[in-house]
């Protein structure tokens, strides 16, 4: 297709994902604040997108025919920054400036400051609309590129998500794929306790979307689902990716308290040691 698309196997995806998780821990520990839980839960999805699926060129972040990725759950930006750096959009050293005054890596994504970031997000519920606008523009132009939007599960409690879901189906966009990082937890607790989002698949189907459900930590399933999404015609598609919040760090996994808290230096050390050892 084009020269800059790396073809890496699942072993290499796993190695990149492990590095990305280490970056996430180091970045957030260094900044003293941030959102490790939801960054770790979507890391495998982002690595798969940027290393196997998205047609992007790190040397030309504004290449007009690039695929677009919108991180609607903007608080997971440490994962996005780490993946962009690994992919070559900017030097890895910049990762350690996260959340500092004057940094290109803001606490939530700023498309004007960070090469490769396609939308400014952070106030939940807005990214699917932005992605739909991109998809409509691409369709108007007969452009080859596609749009991917990553949503959080708590985020779909926002009404605007369903406005966008309705409109995407109304306009029959099939160059738009949504992915739900379904880790089941939000700041105040489990989705089911805070505000039930189930039945998730039925809701999206009722809104006119094609739906599939996968394990969001298995590269083969993520890849297969993204292939499936590209094959859907005449309607938008969503991948419901079952994930584990804090994935990869034993004491963060499934723990709601790690939504928006930085690890202490000792905790970071332990987390990095675990991520070193993981296969």
């Amino acid at each position, binding site marked *: 297709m084009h020269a800059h698309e790396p073809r890496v196997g699942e072993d290499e995806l796993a190695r990149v994902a492990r590095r990305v998780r280490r970056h996430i821990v180091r970045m957030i520990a260094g900044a003293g604040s941030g959102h490790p839980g939801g960054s770790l839960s979507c890391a495998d999805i982002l690595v798969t997108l940027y290393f196997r699926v998205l047609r992007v060129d790190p040397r030309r972040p504004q290449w007009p025919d690039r695929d677009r990725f919108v991180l609607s759950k903007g608080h997971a930006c440490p994962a996005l920054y780490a993946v962009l750096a690994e992919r070559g959009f900017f030097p890895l050293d910049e990762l350690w400036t996260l959340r500092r005054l004057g940094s290109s890596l803001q606490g939530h994504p*700023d498309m004007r400051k960070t090469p490769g970031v396609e939308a*400014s*997000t952070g*106030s939940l519920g807005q990214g699917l609309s932005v992605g*739909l*606008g991109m998809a*409509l523009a691409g369709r108007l132009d007969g452009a080859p590129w596609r749009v991917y939007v990553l949503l959080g599960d708590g985020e779909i409690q926002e009404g605007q998500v369903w406005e966008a879901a*309705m*409109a995407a189906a109304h*306009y029959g966009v099939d160059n738009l794929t949504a992915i739900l990082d379904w880790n089941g937890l939000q700041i105040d607790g489990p989705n089911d306790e805070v505000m039930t989002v189930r039945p998730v698949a039925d809701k999206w189907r009722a809104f006119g979307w094609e739906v599939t459900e996968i394990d969001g930590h298995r590269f083969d399933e993520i890849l297969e689902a993204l292939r499936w999404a590209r094959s859907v015609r005449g309607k938008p598609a969503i991948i419901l990716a079952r994930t584990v919040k804090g994935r990869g760090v034993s004491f963060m996994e499934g723990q709601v308290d790690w939504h928006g808290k930085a690890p202490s230096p000792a905790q970071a050390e332990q987390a990095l040691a675990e991520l070193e050892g993981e296969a």
Partner: protein
Amino acid sequence: MNAREATRASYGAALVELGRQDPRVVVLDADLSKSTYTSLFAREFPHRHFNMGIAEQNMMGVAAGLASAGKIPFASTFAVFATGRCFDQLRVSICYPALNVKIGASHAGITVGEDGASHQAVEDLALMCALPNMTVVVPADGPETRQAVFAAAAQAGPWYLRLGRPPVPVVTPPGYRFQVGRGCVLREGSDVAIIACGVMVAEALAAAGELDREGIRAAVVNMSTIKPLDVDLLVRMARECRAVVTAEEHSVVGGLGAAVAAVLGEEYPVPLRRVGIQDRFGQSGKPEDLMAEYGLTAAEVARAARAVISRKRPR
């Protein structure tokens, strides 16, 4: 008097003209395309018109996405919905990244009339002026609206165009050229400067005529760009007239009067009165009755002018 035309109607007609010249122009609506006159664009360019239904927040987000991919979206709805309902979308999705989205906000102010307070935006300028990167323009008449639409398309970044429901007289002079960030002196005067926007420009001109019969020479400025404000012109008018009245169909909180007061307070303090809605909601009624009820008349502008003149400091 020249033919009266609603600024929303000029907006709709200008978009068609603009759409013929620039294929990047697309238009979004939220089920009000007949009221915003963007149905004209929809008829000529059905593939470049997106009715997003009664879902304004999504409309603004979609506009942001279209802009980020190179389109020039004009998103249209009533001013109350365009600003209050979508404030966070305008803030984060559009203004923060300074995306090239143009907001065409019709039915602004109390001249909406009978629909009442829920549909009368009296605080939209306050909201829009508070957003970094936003350009805020209130065209006074049809010809200025047409030019403002073209100017908006020619300049990158988010714009808020405040449009009205009822037909209004033409107040800009023949050959007038709209320039963003520049006020226009419609009438010279040395005793008091009346700084007005939108429908209040016509009232200001009528007030100046009334004052003239009393021997008071009132200057009238059409300050159609609220942000960025024409500071140089404001200071010049304050220096020459030493008394200033502002006039707007908007709350005195956060609109033209507040912006003028802030600039003059810092740069050239003179006696000042703000004619506008005095921190109240609107209500149902005929537009002309509401204008009288809320003190948005030539007589009120003239009264404010006499008041500031009486407070002038000797040279």
